[in-house]
């Protein structure tokens, strides 16, 4: 059979028969690489359609991960055959959280933790540091076929893959981390999850821009996409849901990185409030993150600008949005802000919700008077 090569964009998965400098789909430059065209094999036995009423509702029951904040973001726990993709910056705590999760899940059923990044020894050291038990099955392997064979032979109830970028499938000839490999590997894990009813966790790397590395189709294949956010210098981590077929995408999980691993923060409101909340330039707004109300503190400082164009700095909020709010205050509220430097800080970077934006101008008011 004649093998044809195809040029694939590493950012979005766009395919083209010839090389291009700029991807016409996502607009990225120099991301198109040559790969061999492959077709993933169809399942050996064709599936048969069944009436909706005959489908068992048992499959919809939730299994708790043992970590309340993770359950909240997942929509109440894991469902049968669910594929969860967790993305986040290096060192943010993805592997730590999943190892803790694996330890909890091992009390429900056998868990296979397949790592293509760390050795058994490294994982053991981490488990010891976190004070976890040793019931989790470890497999340091990159081959998708080997992992799935081991999962099937051990009859595992949960599968964790760290990470999808290091996995390779024999069906695709390119090297691990390429678009074809990521797509093929994710498709195989997803097919295994759906056929066996085993929940599968996939860890994904993120790009410099913060998006999940690899083709966008990766996010389409899986059921749930979670992003782990937070500053490496700070101990606070936020787990957000970008996509969830089994729950709301508005829920927020809050964790604190401690020496014993990721500790869920069930009451984050107190964490986001500082002691100096009655000082000028401080306002507290109440935002609804999913089903949970959170109090978030906004701090602002205005001072006379020594340069022609005033300085605008915002932490935890888009600077363009901050500029727009200042413009509205200047134009509609009569506050003279164009000759003042403005600094804004939002506790916990929570101001993603539009309902919280009103708290920002309230902080600027006292400085401008």
């Amino acid at each position, binding site marked *: 059979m004649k093998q044809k090569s195809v040029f694939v964009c590493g950012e979005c998965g766009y395919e083209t028969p010839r090389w291009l400098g700029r991807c016409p789909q996502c607009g990225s430059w120099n991301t198109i690489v040559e790969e061999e065209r492959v077709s993933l094999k169809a399942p050996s036995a064709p599936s048969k359609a069944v009436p909706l009423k005959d489908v068992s509702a048992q499959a919809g029951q939730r299994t708790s991960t043992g970590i309340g904040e993770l359950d909240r973001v997942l929509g109440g726990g894991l469902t049968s055959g669910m594929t969860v993709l967790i993305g986040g910056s290096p060192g943010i705590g993805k592997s730590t959280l999943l190892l803790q999760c694996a330890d909890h899940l091992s009390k429900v059923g056998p868990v296979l933790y397949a790592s293509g990044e760390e050795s058994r020894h490294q994982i053991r050291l981490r488990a010891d540091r976190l004070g976890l038990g040793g019931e989790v099955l470890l497999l340091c392997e990159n081959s998708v076929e080997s992992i799935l064979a081991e999962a099937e032979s051990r009859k595992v109830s949960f599968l964790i893959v760290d990470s999808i970028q290091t996995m390779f499938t024999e069906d695709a000839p390119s090297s691990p981390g390429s678009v074809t490999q990521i797509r093929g590997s994710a498709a195989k894990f997803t097919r295994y999850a759906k056929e066996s009813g085993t929940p599968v966790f996939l860890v994904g790397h993120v790009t410099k821009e913060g998006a999940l590395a690899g083709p966008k189709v990766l996010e389409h294949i899986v059921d749930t996409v979670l992003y782990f956010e937070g500053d490496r210098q700070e101990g606070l981590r936020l787990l957000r849901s970008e996509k969830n077929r089994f729950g709301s995408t508005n829920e927020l999980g809050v964790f604190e990185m401690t020496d014993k691993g990721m500790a869920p923060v069930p009451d984050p409101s107190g964490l986001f409030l500082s002691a100096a909340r009655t000082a*000028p330039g401080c306002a507290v707004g*109440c935002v*609804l993150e999913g089903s949970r*109300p959170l*109090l978030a503190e906004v701090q602002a400082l205005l001072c006379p600008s020594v340069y022609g164009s005033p300085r605008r700095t915002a932490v935890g909020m888009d600077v363009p949005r901050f500029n727009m709010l200042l413009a509205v205050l200047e134009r509609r*509220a009569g506050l003279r802000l164009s000759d003042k430097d403005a600094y804004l800080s939002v506790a916990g970077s929570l101001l993603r919700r539009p309902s919280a934006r009103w708290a920002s*101008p309230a902080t600027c*008011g*006292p400085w401008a008077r």
Partner: protein
Amino acid sequence: MNARLKECLRLGYTSVLVPEGVRGDLPGLRLVPIRNVLEASSLVAYPAE
């Protein structure tokens, strides 16, 4: 809105600025209706620096 007000009360707030028209009946929490942000900042008494 009621969930947010309850959270404010739980964290020890006794007065909350709310948009005009919002009603709530939580003992111990005073709702101060405001029309706009400027009104909000003029209502709040900041301690002397």
